[in-house]
């Protein structure tokens, strides 16, 4: 198992966003996490990656407990993530955005110049992969939303994570770009990266994912292959609110 949570719970005031969620994601696959709006997917993401502290329950990554880890430790353990409304460092250049994400230097190299040709080459590689290498010197705030999504993805990849969690990679971008992102995900998955993707775009989920978990009211209600999920009555109920 790649990543699993046991009885993970988080509530805000009276609202329980994640409710005793026990979920397993499969290593080496593209995992999908779907569910209606407000079903707690993003909060679940945030709990797993240490952005917020869960009230109870545990998270384990490749057999190690990471429940209490702060988000930077989670990242260094090999889990990279993107944000629902993509987040880049607006007033840094595209290149600098990537250089932030290098696997973190030891104390000895901390004061070395960030202008490290080796890291730069790696950064250019990822920029080429996502297709924005011509923007290397542009400030991130001047990029279009779609370009920022690609930049964010490149930044995550720069940290060389084994597992990549994407929060709505298709949200707010045009269909052409969605196709490009999907292709990239598949390529990277073939190269050995595990993906966990929250997505509303059913077409994308169904075509891309190997394994899908369905969330409703803060807990998983179904999981399995996409084709099976599509026919699951509980899923239909959750989505249609019957």
């Amino acid at each position: 198992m790649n990543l699993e949570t046991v009885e993970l719970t988080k509530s805000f005031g009276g609202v329980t966003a994640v409710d005793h969620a026990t979920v397993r994601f499969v290593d080496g696959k593209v995992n999908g996490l779907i569910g209606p709006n407000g079903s707690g997917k993003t909060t679940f993401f945030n709990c797993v990656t240490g952005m917020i502290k869960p009230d109870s329950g545990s998270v384990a990554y490749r057999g190690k407990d990471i429940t209490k880890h702060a988000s930077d430790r989670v990242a260094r353990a090999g889990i990279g993530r993107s944000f629902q409304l993509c987040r880049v460092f607006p007033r840094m250049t595209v290149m600098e955005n990537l250089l932030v994400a290098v696997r973190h230097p030891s104390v000895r190299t901390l004061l070395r110049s960030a202008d490290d040709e080796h890291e730069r080459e790696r950064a250019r590689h990822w920029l080429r992969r996502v297709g924005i290498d011509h923007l290397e010197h542009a400030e991130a705030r001047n990029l279009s939303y779609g370009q920022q999504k690609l930049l964010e993805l490149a930044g995550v990849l720069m940290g060389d994570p084994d597992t990549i969690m994407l929060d709505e990679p298709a949200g707010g971008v045009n269909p052409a770009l969605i196709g490009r992102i999907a292709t990239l995900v598949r390529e990277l998955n073939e190269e050995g990266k595990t993906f966990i993707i929250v997505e509303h775009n059913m077409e994308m989920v169904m075509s891309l994912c190997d394994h899908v978990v369905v969330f409703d009211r803060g807990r998983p209600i179904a999981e399995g292959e996409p084709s099976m999920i599509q026919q699951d009555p509980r899923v239909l109920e959750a989505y249609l609110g019957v």
Partner: protein
Amino acid sequence: MRNDSERTASAGRTASADLGPALTETVVVAPDAPRRRRRWSRAVSLALLVVGAALVLSFPFIAPNPYILSAGVVILNYAVLSTGWNFMGGFTGYISLGHAAYFGLGAYGTGLIVKYLELPGFVAWVLAALVVVAISVPVGIAALRVRGASFVIVSIAFVLILLLVFQSWREFTGGSEGLIVPRPFPDLLRPEHHRAFFYLFAGLLAAALVAWWVIDRSKFGTALKSIREDEDKARSLGVPTTRYKLIAYVLSALVTGLGGGLYALWFGDLDPIFQFSILIGSYMVLMALLGGVRHLFGPLLGALIVGIALEYFKLEFGDTQFHLVAAGLLLGVVVLFMPDGVIPAVGQLIDRFRPQQTSIRDVSAAELLEQNRRSDASATGAADAREASGEASTRDASDVSDASDPKEVTR
């Protein structure tokens, strides 16, 4: 370095060319413009650096009288303090209005060590710097647990506490009567004393600037700057933000404390109300912001402008509080109209006069948003936020996930 023709070629390329026909965004970006500017500005800054250093070093000889020289010392002291502040404020974006706390601790630390341990002034100075570091670590750990406005409140509270302690703990600190620090060079006449300290302050400033510069271009600096841009994002990329912020905070306290200690040795009379005043702390912020927190020489430039202006106002309107009004107005103008400081503002002004830029990025980015606008509520929210802020950073503000977000987009 690639040659020019190659760069020009890449400049002409559009995003769509790279992303294939599927992507219709037409963002034209000129990647060579920043580079050319960088080279140009590097030459200019080098020239300015040489001229500036020469001016600073020769100042004690061209200063017409000891008073002007002492004003020069005060301004160098301000420059040290605001550069010290900028280790924290500039890199991480954590604005401390209470940095006078470390100025005061450095000064009082030096004075008290001389008084009680009877060590030579400069030994006391170094020891006091260590004391400042020792104090700043726990305070930093506590203060950096919170962000934004709470951090500002904590920083103000810290300096107010120290003021109370140093006023009240009379047996130890001398209370409101202040503390007299003996001169390290008792044989020097006053003008010579000023001159010696002018060079000491200049040396300290140079050391602080070099340290800032080293960090600025280091991996550490890049990580700190990512904290300034978006702390949660930086963490999610694996930057150990807590530790890095603390290091920056302690360094900042150290430089400020060293400035305070040197001030104590130079000035000789310490008074808690002056050493621990919010006003001194706010001058540090004003100077750094005015010059530009992202620039090595920003705080120095700000110190020069504000320092001279303060002296001018005190002399011209000395029997009134007019200098406060002036400082307040200046701070207000900086905050409202040029939050990035003078240096970028001047840079933009120069850009306006230089030949046609190839970049039409801003316009196209906005147009693009228009195109990309969808019925999707979250995406629309993002576009709104970007338009409102004029910046392209967006935040996840939907779901209940806002609890994880430090700097909610507030409308």
